C-alpha cells in the first residue's frame, strides 16, 4: 500500500507543475484549449488514481472497526 499511495502525488504534480509546460491554446483537445484539456484530464485521471488507492488501501479492506489493526 505504501507504494500505491504515492500515486496520489501524480495529479498534484500534474496540475501544479505540469500546467506550466502546456500553457497554450493549440492544439485543441476534444475542442478544448490544450491547457484546459490538461487540467480536465488530471481531474479525471486523479479520480481514477484515487479509486486505485482506495481499492488497495488496507484501512478499508476490513469493516470500519478493523482500523486499529490496519496500520500504525
Amino acid at each position, binding site marked *: 500500500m505504501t507504494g500505491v499511495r504515492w500515486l*496520489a502525488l501524480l*495529479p*498534484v504534480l500534474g*496540475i*501544479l*507543475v505540469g*500546467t*506550466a509546460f502546456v*500553457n*497554450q*491554446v*493549440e492544439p*485543441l483537445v*476534444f*475542442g*478544448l*484549449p*490544450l*491547457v*484546459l484539456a490538461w*487540467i*480536465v484530464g*488530471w*481531474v*479525471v485521471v*486523479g*479520480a481514477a488514481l*484515487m*479509486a486505485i*488507492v*482506495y481499492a488497495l*488501501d488496507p*484501512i*478499508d479492506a476490513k469493516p*470500519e472497526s478493523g*482500523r486499529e489493526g490496519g496500520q500504525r
Partner: protein
Amino acid sequence: MNGALVIIGLTAVMALGLGLAARRGLRMTLEQWTVAERAFGGPFVFLLTAGEIYTTFTFLGGSGYAYGKGAPAYYILAYGTLAYILSYWLLPPIWRYAKQERLISQSHFFAKKYDSPGLGILAAVVGVVALVPYLVLQLKGLGIIVSVASYGSISPALAVWIGAATVTIYVMISGVHGTAWNAVVKDFLILAVVVFLGIYLPLHYYGGYAEMFRAIDAAKPGFLAFKPTGESVLWFQSTVALTALGFFMWPHAFAAALTSRHERTFRRNAVILPLYQLILLFVFFCGFAAILKAPGLSGGDIDLSLFRLAIQTFDPWFVGVIGAAGVLTALVPGSMILLSAATLLANDVLRALMPDIADDRVTLTARGFVPVIALVAVYFTLQGGQTIVALLLMGYSFVTQLFPALICSLLARNPMTKQGAIAGIVVGVATVAYVTLTHSTFVSLLPFLPSQANDVNVGFAALALNALASAAVSLATRSAAVPMASRPG
C-alpha cells in the same frame, strides 16, 4: 413586473414556505447539513454532498471569470480535485480526534489540541472574517439576478437589499430548522440549468466547442491560456495551492466533516467528488460563449455575463427559470453562511469568553447576530467593485491561515506551540488584511523580491509568512519551556 421576475419571486416565496413548513421536520443545523443528506442512498448522496459547493460562486462567479479573465478561471476546476485528494488523509485523523474528544466545531478542535481557549477564539474570529466575503458574494449574486431579471427596473443596490432581507428572513424563519428540500431542489435545478446552458449556448451561437474556442482565440489572442505576468501560471499554481489547502478550513466544511458517520466516507468522497467538478466545465462554456455574443462588461460587472447572454437568447419565462436556480444557489448557501457566522460568534466566541452563559442566551444571541452580520455584508456588497471570484479568494486567503496550525496538530509529536500557532495565524491574517486594504503588492513590501513574485496569490504569500512566524515563535517558546517543565523537545 415581467414573467422572469414573477418566477424568481415565486421561487423565493416557495423557498421561504418550505423553510417554514420544515420547522418541525428535518433538523438542519450547519453541522447536520451533510449528515442529514447521508440518510439518503446511492447517487442521491453523491449529488447532495457534492452540491454543497454549488453556490452563486460557481454559477455566476465561474462563468463571469471565464468571460472577463479567461484562463485564470481554470483554477476553479483544479483546486477541488487537489482538496479532495488531500482530504483522503487529512479528514480521517481530524474526525477520529473529534469523535474521541466529542468536539463539534473547528474552534473547539483548536482549543483542545493546543489546550488554549484563546486559540479557539482566534480560529472562530478568523472563520467569521473569512465568511463575510463569502456572504457578500452570495448577496452580490442575488442582486445581479434580481436586477438583471427585472430587465433594469430594479436597481442593483435595491436588489442587494431585497436579497439580504430575503436571506435574513429565511434564516430567521427556518433558523436551524432549514429544509433539506431546498438544497435538493437547488442542486437538481442548478445541475439541469448549467448542463443545458453549457451545451446549448456554444452549439447555438458557434456550432461547436472547437469553433467557439477558435473564434475567441482569434478575437482575443492569449485569452485562453495564462498570461506571462499578472494572473500567470505562477498565480494559478499559488492560487490552486492556497484554495486546496483552505478547502476544509472553512468553519462550516470542517464542522460538516466532524459529524460524518464513518471515516470511510471521506475516502470514498475523495474518489467520487473530483469528477463532480467537471460540471464546472459547462459553467465555463456559458461564460466563454458570452465573450463574443454579449461583449462590453468589465470590472465587477463580468459576473453579469451569463444573465446578459441568457436574456439575449431566451424568452423571459426561461430567464426566470435560470434566475430561480440562481436565487436558490445564493439563498441556500447564503443562509448557511449567515447562520454559521452567527453561531461562531455566539457559541465559539461569546461562550468561550463567558463560560457560565446559559444555552438559551447563546441561541438568542446567535439570532441577534444574524441581522447584524447581514447588514455588515450589505455594506461591503454596496461598496462594490469586486468580482465574485475575488471575494471568494479573499475569504480563502483568510481561512487558509488556519492550515499550518491544524496540520501540525495532527502530527504524532506536534512541533508547534500554542504561542507559535497564534503568532502564525495573526501574522498571516494581518498580512492579508494589510495587502487587501492598502492594495499594495509584495514587491513594494519586500523590494528584494523579483517582480515575478507579484503574481503569487496574496493568501499564499501570507501563508508562507505565517509558517515562518509560527516556526520562529514555536522554537522560542519551546526552548523557553524546556527548563521549566523539563520535558524533551
